[in-house]
């Protein structure tokens, strides 16, 4: 999958961002937490690459460090909602009786726009990284449940599942060894998209002031603080914004790439199209 350039670039970007944010303390030229009243709202320069904020802190460092919370929230939410969604989806898809119970609850949760649901939950629980993770997991796992359930319904009717039942294999084993491995690809793809969506959601919640505590730098918090300076110091908003866009774009491209890699038809189509194109060229010349 990584052999294709379109997939390699977002992958490399995400890895670089991850490594950079983890090791930020060691290599950042200017510490992002040092305030300097003489350097307030300075434009980007060779010293402060992304400029400075209203306390005179270095914005480049802040943007890099802020990626920690975004990636942490994104990854944890993606992981938790995938695990939860897979379990509920497997149960709902496999056991007819549980299906109607689980799916009605899921339908009820899906009736709320996910951001609104997360907003209400964070408002109720209070803003902190843990609570954001809980709220976002809660609003995203129904999506996974739906995807998993529909895949299970499909795979369940294939004869090898019945054949396994015929040879007396127990239900948990059938679920774990015969059904789950055969539906992994849509789960992984959906998980990547959840990753991207929860980074966006975390930024939105922080921007709205119900997210992570303002003392912790996150892209959403930075955007929120920068609002009033947008005409005075546009770089304050632009750089965190660009990072959000790039990260989400990279994750979505990665998800697309994964989907193509898992879907034999998509690959075949592309190759077939290329072949057709070549033939046309040959005939034209």
């Amino acid at each position, binding site marked *: 999958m990584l052999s294709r350039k379109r997939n390699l670039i977002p992958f490399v970007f995400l890895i670089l961002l991850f490594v950079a944010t983890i090791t930020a303390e060691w290599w950042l030229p200017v510490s992002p937490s040092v305030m300097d009243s003489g350097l307030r709202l300075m434009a980007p320069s060779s010293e402060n690459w992304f400029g400075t904020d209203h306390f005179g802190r270095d914005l480049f460092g802040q943007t890099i460090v802020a990626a920690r919370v975004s990636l942490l929230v994104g990854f944890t939410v993606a992981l938790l909602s995938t695990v939860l969604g897979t379990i509920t989806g497997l149960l709902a898809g496999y056991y*007819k009786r549980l299906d109607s119970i689980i799916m009605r609850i899921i339908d009820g949760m899906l009736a709320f726009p996910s951001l609104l649901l997360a907003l209400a939950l964070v408002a109720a629980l209070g803003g902190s990284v843990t609570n954001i993770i809980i709220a976002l997991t809660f609003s995203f796992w129904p999506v996974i449940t739906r995807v998993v359930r529909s895949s299970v319904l499909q795979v369940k009717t*294939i*004869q*090898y599942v*019945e*054949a*396994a*039942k*015929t*040879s*007396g*294999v*127990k239900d948990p*084993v059938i679920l774990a*060894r*015969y059904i789950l*491995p*055969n539906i992994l690809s849509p789960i992984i793809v959906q998980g990547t998209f959840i990753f991207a969506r929860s980074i966006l959601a975390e930024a939105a919640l922080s921007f709205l002031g119900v997210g992570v505590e303002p003392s912790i730098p996150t892209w959403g918090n930075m955007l929120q603080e920068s609002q009033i300076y947008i005409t005075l110091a546009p770089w304050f908003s632009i750089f965190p914004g660009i990072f959000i866009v790039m990260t989400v774009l990279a994750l979505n491209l990665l998800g697309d790439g994964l989907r193509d890699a898992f879907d034999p038809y998509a690959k075949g189509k592309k190759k077939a199209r290329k072949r057709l194109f070549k033939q046309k060229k040959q005939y034209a010349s």
Partner: protein
Amino acid sequence: MLEINNLKAYIDTPDGIVKAVDGVSFSIKAGETIGIVGESGSGKSVLAHSLMQLNPKPPVFYPQGEILFEGKNLLQLKEKELRKIRGNEIAMVYQDPMSSLNPVLKIGDQLMEAILTHNPMTKSEARQRAIELLTDVGIPDPKKRLNAYPHQFSGGMRQRVLIAIALACNPKVLIADEPTTALDVTIQAQILELMKRIQEKYGTAIIIISHDLGVIAQMAEKVLVMYSGRIVEKGNVEEIFYQTAMPYTWSLLRSLPRIDSEAHERLLSIEGQPPNLMNPPSGCNFHPRCPFATEQCKLVDPELTERSADHAAACILSEAEFEEAKKRIETKDQERGQGHD
């Protein structure tokens, strides 16, 4: 060993109750082979699945009858006890070898799973047994093949693996639901040959379900002919094929292409469609399609009656009447010319 008494399996659908299996009785002894024939929708597969209690419940329910396996009525066993029987005592080989193996597990893992589910063994013992089984079903280089994935096997090879899986625990009964339908003729012959050899080696009772009369003739000793959920004729192969006593069986046999037929001869078919099992026709289920049908047939639903020892048919015509009617139709066909329209 396996005895089915007046088994009924109905399907509860939103439009009404479908009588998929409607009062079927037969029994099978160790080492015996029974063939079940019938066209699509005659209830063969529902019957086969009933024997293993694999029909989804609901919508399928069993209003009457019993399936006695070594004295135990399978209809009354709990799921846990059934699991001990499935694969261990009664095993099944499926129609489509292409989709009956899990594509993400190695052949060896799937074989060992079947072995370990029912036998307390170590992994290496199970591995040994798996190699034995693959050798038994004629897969070359079994040790190496254990690590292969299903997609690396051809259809015939996969069917061999499936048979190996079915044999994993030395089952007493093997149900083969159209085991050769998806295979080409040469492979078909090999697989049937293999099943016969296995039967001789282990004394397995085989129930073979097919719509291919050739397969049945080659494999089975006894034949059950099913039509709209019922057995309409049963007997030994010779009796079924040479002393047919039921118009449906006769029509089935007549619709077979013959190797000695003229090049331009049309194939004969049975007119019409199998009856709607939700509201079957009055009287004999076959009368709307039966070339011998009389007014009487619309009223009387014939029971399965003995014609000779072990040979029974469900038709109101006596043997003499049936012979006469057959002759009449055959001469009519000939009068209409060689064409058999």
